[in-house]
């Protein structure tokens, strides 16, 4: 049997990063504060995870303004979508492994 773990993506092996990716799969875009509320984490924690995802090209950042306040929104990239789907498939295969 092939090792199923090789298809698991290390980047998604974290609750916050996994949550961000799941959220972005079903929402076209979402801003920082909504993400923070959903994940229930601190600003700094979320920001560092978002930076990791951006570095790997899984998410796109759009910096905008609402009036004078900055409004940073995030959306998923094609590469991000593909990697996330592969990650889910790998998880499914691991579950099937016991049967």
């Amino acid at each position, binding site marked *: 049997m092939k090792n199923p*773990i090789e298809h698991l993506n290390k980047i998604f092996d974290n*609750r916050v990063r*996994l*949550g961000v990716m*799941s*959220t972005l*799969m*079903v*929402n076209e875009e*979402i801003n920082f504060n*909504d993400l923070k*509320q*959903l994940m229930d984490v601190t600003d700094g924690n979320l920001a560092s995870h978002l930076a990791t995802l951006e570095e790997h090209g899984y998410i796109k950042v759009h910096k905008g303004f609402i009036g004078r306040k900055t409004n940073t929104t995030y959306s998923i990239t094609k590469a991000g979508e593909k990697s996330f789907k592969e990650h*889910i498939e790998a*998880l*499914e295969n*691991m*579950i099937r*492994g*016991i049967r």
Partner: protein
Amino acid sequence: MTSQHQSLDTLQDIKRMMERSSRFISLSGWSGVSAGCCALIGAWLAHEKLQQMFGGPVGRDWNYAVRGHQSIPDQIASFYDLILIGICTFVAALISSFFFTWLRSRKQKTPLWDRTVQRLMWNTALPLGIGGLVILRCLQLGYFEMVAPGCLIFYGLALVNASKYTLGEIRYMGYGQLILGVINLWNVGSGLLLWAIGFGVLHIVYGLVMWWKYERISQQSNS
């Protein structure tokens, strides 16, 4: 063994995050039940008022298409009473259903005012608001028969639209309202009856089914 369990947990996490970020899932079944009860009380009050207006039992064979023999000022007064009953029913249903959903969202510790709620509100309020305008215009023009089917049809459309932003099953209640509304278009005399079935009975049935499906289990697991 544990890695498989971990995978399952992770997949469930993913599913939960997807749902929580795109749908408002704290809508309580009791909200449906309470709104339905308000509607039934409102329909009964309207029925009584119509009997008073027409000076005798109405709704024989469930047909309300009868003409009154009150004087014009009395008819106008009764007409405003009917509108008042309608508005009070709507407000009571709104407040009571809000209350139960507020209780549930507090228990689940989900925010009652986030983007999922805002999207749900907007997508429900738009068809309802426009429907309200159409019904207001029907009243002004004297097409009273169109009020009940108008309520049912626009509410049905609002529910089908809302189903994308909250518990998906609400779509079937929308279909039910639409069917009743269309039947009503060709049976204008049965307006009050069909209205009571749609806003009263359907709400209560939907609320009980939703409570059975989602809230009963979580209550058991809490205790």
